[in-house]
């Protein structure tokens, strides 16, 4: 048997190795034909019998699901069951049989497809998902029309398998037992599909979106599911298998090693301490940050509060959200970034015009200064939350001095309002600005006396310095965190800030990239803020290095003309120390 690699999309990370179990659900409807008029009453009887049997079995399933998964999951199935008696569903199927002489299968298919089409075209993701409920009940119903075609019960899986299916529906996934499912390989689906969310929330490695999957794979094939790379390897050769087993082993020992550093501080061998914080957007992520050993929140993105609602969130809703997060972080500091909407993140209810170059357009602070009422509501909410914990205020996308000045004036105005209304807030609240537009990095001396701290957003800084569209594959080679221009800008900002005793943090994705760590150590960056699950590894890495060595390395790096050289210098440096 030859090894075969199938390429898909990895939607839940991790690796698993095991035997394939193909779920053959017979999704096809059997008889798409028309019947003769004398068969109508027979066909209607067949339809009704199938419905009764289907409803009875669903009742049993509902009871089972209630006991094992709780009412919430059972509710999905109950909803599906109610479709069987719905006046827009069943009588319509009957109608096609009576009037158009469709077979029961053909009539069912017609009605199911009508609703699937309607729901799939809806704006809300929630309603789009309902299309799978309809498909699900359609498949079930259809299976009962052909009693010989037994439905496979996923609950009967009692050994560890890699589950392979064309598609999995909500009523399928609730039946799966986590301990028996090593991995998932699915032909259909997207990143936000039900299956993907299910897999990642259960921590099951999963690859989706593989064309013709069910014809390429069969029961009991040996496979490797690589959710990190988004591939599935069928009948791996011995060498491949060993490579993967080694990777699994290494992963486990590595993770164990890093996890020992979760609760430690990041201090180099020669005593430089760097604060390690987390980037978050919600309360759930704050909990994760705590679990991974974050010493604070270096970036709280506030866009989620705005995007999860259908109109502008008012002051109370925002206060509630910010306060909830601050409470969770107890005495640790939380840097709240004001609204950074625009670019690739839109708020439909603001009804802003479509732009040709949204990343260079009306976004973040530009939009906030153009809609003062929105900005004031947010500033009030953040300031009020500051009475309950250690909050710092961070302003995104400042590109000129005037914007910073206007922003500071507004903050003063809001503080005055609150004082007059006798509402408590932290009068000493620290103000910082994001450095993500080259104009501010170049002119950093102008800003350093105006704010308490800087936070360097490397993602946008790279995009704007290199004039490269982050999303365009054709130019992605230019998107390089390690380009000499980027290293120099970070160095300049840090040196100027430190000469004035100001604090510098990095909150772009570069902060969690361990290859960049020696540079940050050499520069003496005060805080690195990253996604929570990168924290243990970064803490570990910092503890293995000394600043003296990193400074020597930085001097070498500063002479490089290409990002590639800088990267290979960093790689060698870490390799020599067995950290790469």
């Amino acid at each position, binding site marked *: 048997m030859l090894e075969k690699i199938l390429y898909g999309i990895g939607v839940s990370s991790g690796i698993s190795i095991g035997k394939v179990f193909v779920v053959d659900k017979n999704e096809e409807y059997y008889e798409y034909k028309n019947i003769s008029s004398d068969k109508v009453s027979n066909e209607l009887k067949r339809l009704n019998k199938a419905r009764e049997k289907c409803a009875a079995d669903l009742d049993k399933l509902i009871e089972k699901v209630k006991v094992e998964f709780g009412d919430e999951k059972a509710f999905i199935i109950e909803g599906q069951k109610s479709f069987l008696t*719905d006046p*827009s*569903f069943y009588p319509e199927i009957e109608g096609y049989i009576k009037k158009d002489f469709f077979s029961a299968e053909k009539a069912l298919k017609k009605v199911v497809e009508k609703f699937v089409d309607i729901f799939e075209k809806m704006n809300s993701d929630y*309603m789009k998902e309902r299309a799978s409920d309809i498909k699900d009940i359609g498949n079930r119903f259809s299976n009962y029309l052909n009693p010989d075609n037994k439905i496979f019960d996923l609950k009967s899986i009692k050994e560890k398998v890699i589950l392979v299916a064309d598609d999995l529906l909500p009523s399928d996934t609730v039946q799966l037992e986590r301990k028996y499912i090593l991995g998932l390989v699915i032909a259909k689906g997207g990143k936000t599909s039900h299956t993907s969310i299910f897999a990642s929330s259960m921590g099951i490695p999963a690859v989706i979106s593989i064309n013709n999957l069910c014809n390429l794979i069969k029961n009991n094939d040996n496979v490797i599911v690589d959710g990190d790379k988004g591939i599935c390897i069928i009948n791996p050769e011995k060498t491949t298998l060993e490579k993967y087993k080694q990777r699994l082993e290494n992963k486990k020992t590595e993770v164990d090693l890093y996890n020992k550093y979760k609760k430690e501080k990041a201090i180099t061998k020669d005593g430089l301490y760097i604060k390690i914080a987390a980037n978050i957007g919600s309360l759930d992520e704050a909990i994760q940050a705590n679990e991974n050993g974050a010493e604070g929140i270096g970036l709280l993105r506030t866009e989620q509060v705005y995007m999860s609602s259908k109109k502008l969130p008012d002051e109370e809703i925002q206060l509630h959200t910010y306060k909830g997060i601050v409470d969770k972080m107890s005495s640790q500091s939380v840097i709240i970034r004001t609204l950074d909407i625009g670019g690739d993140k839109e708020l439909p209810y603001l009804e802003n015009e479509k732009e040709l170059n949204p990343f260079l357009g009306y976004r973040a602070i530009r939009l906030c200064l153009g809609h003062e009422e929105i900005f004031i509501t947010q500033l009030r909410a953040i300031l009020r939350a500051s009475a309950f914990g250690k909050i710092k205020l961070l302003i995104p996308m400042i590109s000129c001095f005037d914007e910073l000045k206007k922003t500071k004036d507004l903050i003063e105005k809001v503080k005055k309002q609150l004082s007059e209304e006798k509402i408590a807030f932290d009068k000493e609240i620290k103000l910082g600005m994001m450095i993500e537009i080259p104009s501010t990095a170049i002119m950093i001396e102008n800003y350093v006396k105006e704010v308490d701290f800087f936070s360097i957003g490397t993602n946008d800084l790279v995009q704007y310095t290199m004039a490269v569209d982050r999303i365009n594959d054709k130019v992605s080679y230019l998107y390089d965190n390690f380009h000499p221009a980027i290293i120099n800008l970070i160095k300049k900002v840090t040196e100027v800030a430190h000469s004035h005793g100001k604090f510098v943090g990095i909150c772009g994705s570069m902060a969690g990239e361990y290859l960049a760590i020696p540079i940050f150590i050499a520069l003496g960056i005060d805080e690195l803020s990253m996604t929570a699950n990168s924290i243990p590894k970064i803490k570990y890495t910092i503890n293995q290095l000394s600043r003296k060595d990193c400074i020597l390395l930085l001097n070498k790096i500063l002479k490089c003309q290409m990002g590639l050289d800088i990267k290979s210098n960093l790689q060698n440096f870490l390799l020599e120390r067995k950290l790469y």
Partner: protein
Amino acid sequence: MIKKETTIKNKEGFHIRPAQIFSNAASKFESDVVVLNKDGNSTNGKSTLGLMALGFETGSKIILEISGKDEIEAGNELINIIDNKFGED
């Protein structure tokens, strides 16, 4: 026949739970309940699926046309259910 009109006020619009609450309530009455959206598309108000398929969101206008012996009571109760956000919040 009576005709009544209101707007959807709950956050999620006619997702499955509100649609079920509404269709269950409508089914208690003898009268026929026709539900229309602002574009004039209609469905049987006793159909959960039909209500969901009309795509009502928060702020959407909703029109009820009720005809039958108990149309007055039905109208009052159904409008009440919508205005009370289907017991959400």
